[in-house]
């Protein structure tokens, strides 16, 4: 009886691919009690053959996509011996997409005790259905995601991290290369000795240009996007070596994003190292302890002596 009911429901869903309400099922099979109908629907849901949706009229049951149904049935065949709990956990992990989900969050969502969760996770891992990826933000945290998914940038740190290690040398090398490129561009512009407006404009390079140059250099094993290059260029701005302007660019011009382009230019600092740091006192680590007549005083300052002998 129940089997018949489930079959019938599936047929109805195929008939109405956009989904059917409970009312429709009731109309079709008036002889089945509400409880039995509910059981049948639940079974179909747990088997993954139906999707449960909410509309403004009420609940909708929809046949699951044949594509989706594919791996599910494959999964079903694999999971023949597993219990519902594992299915639940798997579902939760799948929902987390490629950002992954932390074990504690799995616990919250599934309301299962920690020991159970751990057992299930180990099981799923051994069956190669999920994998654990170490998060770069907190190195002790492990997030779980489906086995065949690429972890998202926020987890691995993107191009700057390789195996959870921040590649500072790589960043430094890129930093220097970008700066050299901008510097040489400014040099050629200066030497051309044309009128100042043209000189200044030709000393600018767009982020796209820099990106192309770096890609052509081939120093990066990982592919870098234009945004990556822009973060490097920003560090050059914070070094005070480069300035940036944004100009409006027509949509479609190479390198423009949302109607504007970022231009970068190598610049000189506006003042030379200031007077205070040319004296030993400016850099002295024990400045606060120094006073006449004390252990450390100007008269016996060793930094001064060294500096005077220079």
């Amino acid at each position: 009886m129940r089997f018949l009911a489930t079959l019938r429901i599936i047929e109805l869903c195929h008939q109405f691919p956009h989904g059917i309400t409970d009312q429709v099922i009731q109309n079709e099979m008036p002889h089945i009690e509400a409880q039995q109908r509910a059981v049948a629907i639940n079974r179909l849901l747990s088997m993954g053959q139906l999707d449960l949706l909410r509309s403004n009229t009420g609940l909708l049951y929809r046949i699951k996509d044949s594509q989706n149904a594919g791996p599910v049935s494959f999964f079903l065949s694999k999971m023949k011996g597993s219990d519902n709990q594992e299915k639940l956990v798997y579902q939760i992990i799948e929902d987390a997409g490629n950002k992954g989900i932390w074990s504690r969050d799995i616990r919250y969502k599934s309301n299962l005790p920690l020991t159970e969760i751990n057992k299930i996770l180990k099981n799923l891992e051994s069956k190669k259905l999920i994998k654990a990826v170490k998060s770069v933000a907190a190195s002790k945290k492990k997030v779980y995601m489906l086995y065949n998914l690429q972890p998202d940038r926020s987890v691995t740190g993107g191009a700057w991290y390789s195996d959870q290690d921040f590649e500072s040398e790589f960043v430094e090398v890129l930093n220097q290369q970008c700066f050299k490129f901008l510097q040489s561009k400014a040099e050629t512009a200066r030497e051309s000795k044309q009128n100042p407006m043209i000189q200044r404009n030709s000393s600018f390079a767009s982020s796209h240009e820099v990106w192309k140059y770096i890609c052509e250099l081939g120093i990066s094993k990982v592919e870098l996007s234009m945004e990556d290059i822009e973060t490097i260029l920003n560090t050059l701005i914070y070094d005070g070596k480069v300035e940036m302007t944004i100009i409006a660019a027509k949509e479609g011009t190479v390198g423009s994003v949302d109607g504007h382009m970022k231009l970068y230019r190598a610049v000189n600092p506006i003042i030379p190292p200031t007077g205070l740091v040319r004296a030993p006192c400016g850099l002295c680590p024990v400045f606060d302890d120094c006073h006449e007549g004390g252990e450390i005083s100007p008269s016996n300052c060793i930094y001064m002596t060294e500096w005077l002998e220079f």
Partner: protein
Amino acid sequence: MTQAEIKLCSLLLQEHFGEIVEKIGVHLIRTGSQPLRVIAHDTGTSLDQVKKALCVLIQHNLVIYQVHKRGVVEYEAQCSRVLRMLRYPRYIYTAKTLYSDTGELIVEELLLNGKMTMSAVVKKVADRLTETMEDGKTMDYAEVSNTFVRLADTHFVQRCPFVPATENSDPGPPPPAPTLVINEKDMYLVPKLSLIGKGKRRRSSDEDATGEPKAKRPKHTADNKEPIPDDGIYWQANLDRFHQHFRDQGIVSAVANRMDQIFRSLPVGYNISKQVLDQYLTLLADDPLEFVGKSGDSGGGMYVINLHKALGSLATATLESVVQERFGSRCARIFRLVLQKKHLEQKQVEDFAMIPAKEAKDMLYKMLSENFISLQEIPKTPDHAPSRTFYLYTVNILSAARMLLHRCYKSIANLIERRQFETKENKRLLEKSQRVEAIIASMQATGAEEAQLQEIEEMITAPERQQLETLKRNVNKLDASEIQVDETIFLLESYIESTMKRQ
């Protein structure tokens, strides 16, 4: 006045004017304005000495006086003016670049003597210049007067306030202290003097023909008895004008560094074609430094220099430079980052600066401990629990500038002390060399032979000579360093002053 400033003032006063003036001066700086008797009592010096010291200080514009009620005159020291004494070399050098040697000596005389009449200045400068010229040439008073007038026209020297002429029918007793007035218009008015004459060389009696000196001498004394035509009109150096000039210089050089071109200083006219000028102005206006802004199009475009912004940029550049030299370029990167973004969380700092978390944390804490960066707490919950509070790093430029300024004062005091120490260490040697030089000079005057001179010179052995050389070099280095630190002080003070004025 902070302790560091008082210490610096004390050192300066002592070096320029001696112990007694220093004691009185420092006392006044510490205690504010006080009447004469109280000063004498508190410092334990005799009334006579206090009067003399105050005379010196007032002459040099370091102390002012005011008449209070009940006829009590109180004297007040100006600490900031005392600190300006550090900048005298820079003022003199500026005068030299603008008005060549004549201007340099005029300003030097005015600074050394505080206040002087024009005729006295002209005479003295002419004499000095004549001495440095070749034999037979003299400096004409007219030339010196011309330079003086030019200095007055450009406001580098100004008239001191003077006692107004009171009517004689005033019945009461004369006031305890004269009130000085100065009219705005009169401040740069040069009196009509016809100074005729030439500079006199300090001739030793047998360089000229024997007849002349004797004939000249009675005439010379007769000259002194003539009344000086501009008695009572005293001039002083106008320090504010010099400061304006330094400020302009600073801004111009900053822009020049950015623009990679040679700019003339303001307000001298440009001699490049108008078209190029237009482009430069547009470039300046567009430049991210934001020194120049365009306000209106009258006359083909009105351009305005945003002074406060300019000073702010210079001050931040100074701060950045100090951070870079003290802590390293990575720290400088973090510092500039927080400056630009105003408020940042720990994580954001790491991400933007592309510096590993551990290093970034270390550097932030170091800068925090030195008060370059401060922490702003934003609680999420009313109980301010640390785990539920945002901690944002931020840079407060004004307080960082003040902190750095204080450090500058102390640094200069250290440098001066070290210089005095070095001199004291080698006092014996210095005295010896001075004696030898005096002997040589007198022997040359009396016409000694080469051999004798040689012998005397050898009194100073080679290693001693080496020591003297080293000493001279060290003292020069310390002096130069003082002037350099003073440049930093100037930038920071200008910025702080400009910010306080706007508030």
